């Protein structure tokens, strides 16, 4: 064996050792067969379709976050115009990003323009079409983009905190899709996502608000108290709807509350579920406020207690409790409302994790039971092994000793593929197994291409050494062309495909790269080794 060939084998050996170590040698060096099995299970990450679990795609209703900004601007603008004594007919919301101001006093136009330019820099202003002295304010596109981005980031962070709070193992939470408003959540091992979905979806917007008036039997009744127009800075909020009965009107109450809350969910220091002291068997959520919020809350409650004022606990725009303030409250409060232990714990978790900036909607939900996953692995592995064995037997029969060479190359191809997946942490999915099977097919093709070419050269009268060398050289271009074409298409699949298609592309690309190495480099080295030990004119077993 010449030294060049020796180095080839050293390199191949190193690759082999590194690959085998990558699959079975980590995280702890194995000392028993059971440990080897354990290591393999740890190193090869399985996709949800193989290990079971839940896959959710949800859409963040971003227009809500934008609409909220619009409402805030309307409130603010109305207040400013009142304060500055500028008369106007009406301020109306056209849609989430447009506000119409009608019939502005003709002599206030200049002051109004100044006001918008200075105080509302997020809005652009233009005379409204078809109005004599009306203006249309439009939210600037750059502001909308920032708002969307911020809302998405906040949603992702909030959901992550909530799911971590549930104590689930290895969840995946990530942006997904092309719409820029979708989030993917994968929960391995969760067979029924209902409970997790509820926690994820909960709004979690807590507010402590002064009660102006109420309760009323209906929203109309509340309005009628004020001749159809609510006092400035107040809003009608429904009480917690009684989910127990279908008779909606019986228990539903309405309150007139201040629009600006004293304390919001952001002011919470902690929230915990505890058994209710008054209602045995029920649970309540107790919370504590941060020091800055307590500094506001203490004086407020003291002042209200003196005049018999009332305060409401509002969660997700529903009044959970409205009670008279008895005395100064420093920094603690509670939410009651016939909670079970689980629902109280979930609410406490949601409050701790923070509110969602906008509501969410589920778009896709897939749950794979653990038994189906186990079956898929078994069947996938069995089918792969079955086809490998069939192919290998055929290769040995058809190409004899050279077939053994091909079998070695194929086996090494698979070892490299598996090891590479372990090293880069690629996830094996069901379509991924299909990709493995295809890799086998391409591996066989490369070997067959080379061997048929060698046979041709032998038929043309070349001695084995020359035939092998020419065969490899001639087949090389073809192998590169076929592999590059397939890799090109696999890369596009990876970039533009979704879930299963991606898993397929990953294994295919890794497998094909390994294949070029084994079917050209390794296979050739074995041929050269064999040729170096046999007589130059002897027949090649092919």
């Amino acid at each position, binding site marked *: 064996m010449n030294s060049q060939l020796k180095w080839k084998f050293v390199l191949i050996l190193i690759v082999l050792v590194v690959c085998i170590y990558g699959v079975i040698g980590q995280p702890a060096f194995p000392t028993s067969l059971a440990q080897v099995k354990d290591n393999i299970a740890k190193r090869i990450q399985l996709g949800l379709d193989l290990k079971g679990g839940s896959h959710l795609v949800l859409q963040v209703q971003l227009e809500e976050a934008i609409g909220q900004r619009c409402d805030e601007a309307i409130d603010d603008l109305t207040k400013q115009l009142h304060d500055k004594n500028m008369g106007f007919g009406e301020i109306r919301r056209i849609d989430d990003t447009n506000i119409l101001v009608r019939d502005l006093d003709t002599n206030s136009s200049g002051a109004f323009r100044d006001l918008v330019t200075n105080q509302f820099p997020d809005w652009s202003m233009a005379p409204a079409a078809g109005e004599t002295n009306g203006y249309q304010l439009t939210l600037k596109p750059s502001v909308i983009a920032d708002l969307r981005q911020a809302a998405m980031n906040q949603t992702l962070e909030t959901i992550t905190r909530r799911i971590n709070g549930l104590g689930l193992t290895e969840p995946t939470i990530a942006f997904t899709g092309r719409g820029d408003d979708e989030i993917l959540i994968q929960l391995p091992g*969760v067979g029924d996502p209902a409970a997790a979905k509820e926690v994820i979806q909960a709004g979690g917007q807590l507010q402590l608000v002064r009660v102006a008036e109420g309760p009323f039997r209906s929203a109309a009744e509340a309005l009628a108290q004020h001749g159809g127009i609510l006092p400035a800075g107040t809003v009608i909020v429904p009480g917690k709807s009684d989910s127990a009965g279908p008779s909606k009107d019986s228990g539903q109450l309405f309150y007139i509350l201040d629009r600006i809350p004293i304390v919001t969910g952001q002011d919470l220091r902690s929230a915990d579920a505890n058994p209710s002291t008054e209602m045995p068997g029920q649970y309540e959520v107790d919370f504590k406020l941060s020091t800055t919020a307590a500094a506001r809350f203490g004086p407020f409650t003291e002042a209200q207690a003196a005049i018999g004022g009332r305060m409401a606990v509002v969660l997700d725009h529903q009044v959970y409790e409205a009670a008279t303030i008895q005395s100064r409250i420093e920094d603690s409060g509670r939410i009651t409302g016939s909670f079970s232990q689980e629902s109280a714990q979930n609410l406490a978790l949601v409050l701790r994790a923070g509110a969602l900036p906008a509501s969410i909607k589920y*778009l896709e939900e897939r749950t794979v039971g653990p038994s189906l996953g186990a*079956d898929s692995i078994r069947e996938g592995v069995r089918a792969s092994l079955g086809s490998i064995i069939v192919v290998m037997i055929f290769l040995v029969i058809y190409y004899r000793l050279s077939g053994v060479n091909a079998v070695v190359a194929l086996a090494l191809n698979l070892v490299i593929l598996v090891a590479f997946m372990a090293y880069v942490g690629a996830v094996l999915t069901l379509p991924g197994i299909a990709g493995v099977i295809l890799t086998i097919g391409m591996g066989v093709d490369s070997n067959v291409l080379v061997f048929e070419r060698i046979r041709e050269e032998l038929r043309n009268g070349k001695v084995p050494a020359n035939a092998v060398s020419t065969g490899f050289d001639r087949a090389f271009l073809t192998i590169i062309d076929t592999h590059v074409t397939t890799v090109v298409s696999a890369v*596009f699949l990876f970039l533009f495909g*979704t*879930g299963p298609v991606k898993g397929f592309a990953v294994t295919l690309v890794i497998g094909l790269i390994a294949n070029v190495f084994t079917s050209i480099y390794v296979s050739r080295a074995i041929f050269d080794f064999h040729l170096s030990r046999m007589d130059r004119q002897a027949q090649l077993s092919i």
Partner: protein
Amino acid sequence: MEFFHGVNVNWMGKAKYFVILSLLLLAVGWISIFRTVFVKHGTLYGIDFRGGTLVYVRFAGPAPIDQIRKGLQQAGLSNSTIQGISDTRSVGSQNDVVIGLEQGQSNESLDAGKQRILDVLQKTFGAAGSGKPDFNSVSAPAIAADLTRKDPLSLGAAAGDRYTQLAARLLSARDTDHGGIVTSFDQIKSVEGATPTVVNSLASDFSLSSFAIRDAEIVGPKVGSQLRRQAILATLYALGGMLVYIAFRFEWVYGAAAVIAVFHDVLITLGFFSLFHFEISLTVIAALLTLVGYSMNDTIVIFDRVRENLRLMRRESFPDVVNKSINQTLSRTILTSGLTFLTVLVLFLMGGEVLRGFSFAMVVGVVVGTYSSFGIAAPIVVVWNKYYGGQGNPIRAGSAAEKRAVVAAARR
């Protein structure tokens, strides 16, 4: 051993028969597609692409399909579909069913359909009125919590995570050894650590229904159309990428011919899908793309040989060169295709229900993909060459650098 050596077939002389064969294959499949879409107003798309709900249920014995159908109809789910499946575990007896439901009202929550199906199943087949959780659908933490609370092994504070491990073993026995469904608590007695007291404790706290949910998929309408668009785009981009690569390596007409050939393969395979009532899902798209790669592979092997032979056989006519190239690579073509066909056939037979659509596409695709290389792609290049390439003057193939590489390779 050697087959197909020294074959000398005039492939290009038979080109018109290939065209007729292709048109026939296309017609058969696409008549079926048109029938499905326009006459029956159905769709080829699976729920991945059209949206809807799919619940995959396993029963302890043969699935009582009539009873399920009755239950679903009583619940007002008359637009549901039920399909029995025989699994590799229970060959000959259909223990599994897939219940499908069309997209519900848009104002309903996404999982409303799934909940209704589950309600029907629970009402019809559940351990009615026991109020105990179902052992066949319970999760490992729930079992561990129950065991820790009851402490049947009297471990007390020393229990540690032993009950957690026991729960994991119990569920692994349920899911792996019994295919996800336990019919009697006696079946888990063989699990390590499951002493009679443990089993009795479980039996008193859990019920056993006669079914288990194996898989549930819900795809909203928006996601459905989005996935559809994405799949089509991915395919077109992949085809475009290959076209560019082949045009760069050969001549543009070779790239165009190869792309037309694989397009032909995809169309025929889609036709067969409709003919055999398979639905197009995300995995099937992966299969279609695989067959695109595979068919392309096959075409390139022949084109590579044509390019090489054009330099060696300067006197022969272009169709002869192509014929010779196909004949020279025929042995390789048939071997590789045969082996790949075998592989996907094994996958089709042994790969289980989930991979059925994928492997079917591959079984059809391998055959069509191999055929299209010499039956469609090669004739296109020959015909183009006849009209635009000039007789007896083979078109220039490959770049200058390419030629140098080949000449160098030939010298070695």
